[in-house]
């Protein structure tokens, strides 16, 4: 009970800080809209080559996962600023649970992602996407799990490096292969064999495929099983890492 209360205090503070800077909120909302409106039409003529029926049913799940990953990857940058101002230390000297300090922040990232996901899915339906309601719910849940994992990892990385200059290249280094090997914008199946084999080792590819399957209503696929397993595993791992860093952070 105290854990929930402490997480909520941290969460409320974070949301308040975000709302005080509406530019970020606006950018967060615009991002998915721009992708859908400006990139969706490009995909339309290529749909037949991929073997999918509806471009938006293909594109929206990919954008969802991308939003979850990349929005959350940048969550840690705010934490470096907070650390520099002594906020993290001030919170660590209170009896509050270290996990709550992290979970409160993750909750903000996940809440923000949830709002973005709703906009994206809503807009997708408006533009002609067809997907079963149950599938959309599961797909969005998977997205939130991935977003939470990436946000936790980003926070942990932030407190480990304590420097934007170190963190930015690290994130870029991680992001490039993730983006290229996950089949977010174009399906991996149109690539050569070796590229597909490489992408088999990319957890996010399985998650993207899993979310796609939920949107087309295929709930029995191995992709969905693997994607869900990866999402849960990544989330657990990142949460453990983040908590360890909040507990130990020493400088």
């Amino acid at each position, binding site marked *: 009970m105290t854990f929930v209360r402490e997480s909520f205090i*941290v969460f409320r503070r974070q949301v308040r*800080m975000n709302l005080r800077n509406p530019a970020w909120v606006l950018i967060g909302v615009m991002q998915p809209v721009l992708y859908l409106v400006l990139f969706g039409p490009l995909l339309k003529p290529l749909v037949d080559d991929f073997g999918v029926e509806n471009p938006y049913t293909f594109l929206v799940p990919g954008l969802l996962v991308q939003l979850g990953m990349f929005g959350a990857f940048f969550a840690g940058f705010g934490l470096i600023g907070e650390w520099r*101002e002594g906020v993290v*230390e*001030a*919170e660590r000297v209170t009896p509050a649970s270290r996990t709550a300090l992290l979970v409160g922040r993750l909750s903000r990232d996940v809440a923000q992602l949830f709002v973005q996901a709703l906009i994206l899915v809503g807009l997708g339906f408006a533009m002609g996407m067809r997907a079963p309601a149950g599938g959309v719910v599961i797909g969005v849940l998977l997205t939130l799990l991935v977003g939470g994992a990436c946000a936790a990892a980003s926070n942990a990385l932030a407190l480990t490096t304590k420097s934007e200059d170190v963190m930015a290249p690290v994130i870029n280094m991680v992001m490039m292969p993730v983006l290229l090997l996950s089949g977010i914008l174009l399906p991996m199946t149109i690539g050569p064999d070796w590229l597909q084999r490489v992408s088999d080792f990319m957890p996010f590819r399985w998650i993207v495929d899993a979310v796609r399957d939920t949107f087309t209503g295929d709930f029995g696929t191995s992709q969905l099983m693997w994607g869900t397993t990866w999402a849960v595993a990544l989330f657990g791992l990142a949460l453990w890492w983040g908590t360890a860093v909040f507990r130990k952070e020493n*400088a």
Partner: protein
Amino acid sequence: MIQARGLVQTFTTKQGRKKVEVRAVDGVDLDVAEGEVVGFLGPNGAGKTTTLRMLTTLLRPTAGTARVAGYDVATQSKQVRQSIGYVSQAGGVSSYARAGDEVVDHGMLYGLSQAQATASGQQLFEQLDLRGLWQRTPKQMSGGQKRRLDIVMGLVHDPTLIFLDEPTTGLDPQARANLWEHIGRLRSERGATVFLTTHYLEEADALSDRVMIIDQGRIVASDTSENLKAAVSGDQVDLEVADPTRLTDAAAALETIADLVEVDGQHVRGRVSRAGRAVPDLLRDLDRTGIELASIEVIRPTLDDVFLTLTGRSLRDAEAGPTDQPVLEGADQ
């Protein structure tokens, strides 16, 4: 209130390619009684902040034990955290958040209800002259106001033991004097025990009942500022003799109460322990023998003299060049 035995903290730093282990704190024993105001004095990098971070549960000691407010810092950290207030060098309030919101959230993390935290915060705003700044952000405050806000954060849950890390660093003299007044009131009005670190001699002098001097990770002295000064060097008495022919007589007279007497031009100088008591007799003596003085000056020793005597370096030198110790990044931040 605080009992620490054999506290050690080691860090590994890189020197070129080699990893070197540095003992930032090297076996610190300290005791602080309830209601005491203790100044922890030392140059930058001496281990002040590292010691403080161990006592406040932010850093786990490599070796040694400490009980703070009756609880063990390693095994009962939650209870320690609940009982103490800590104001770090960096403060702890986000520049873009409203001061009042931050104070209330902070109080709530200590388990206060929103109403309790608000009431306690507003009362502290009154006491620390921050009236009307509840809705402001630190960006819109002066350095002194910001620092007082940091102290409000540390006090919101009404702790009986308060740690202040370099409370007045970076403040102008007026703001510093003002903050000293507020810190002095922590004890007189709240009955709190205060443990503060500083590298300002005047600050340790002005605020603390007792000064602990730390250098290179070890405590080298612990006593009242008065005793430290008296024990170490005594006061310097400087006589300016009006008639140059009587210089040797004046020196002989001074020698009866002083050590290390030296003659320098018209001046005769010597070190006298507790000059306030000895000098009236000296003056009568000089008067009786007809030695006329152009001036007399008694210079009280400073804590810098104490530091110099104890460590062989002045406090300023110690800060300028950590000669045999690699610079510890982050260890004393």
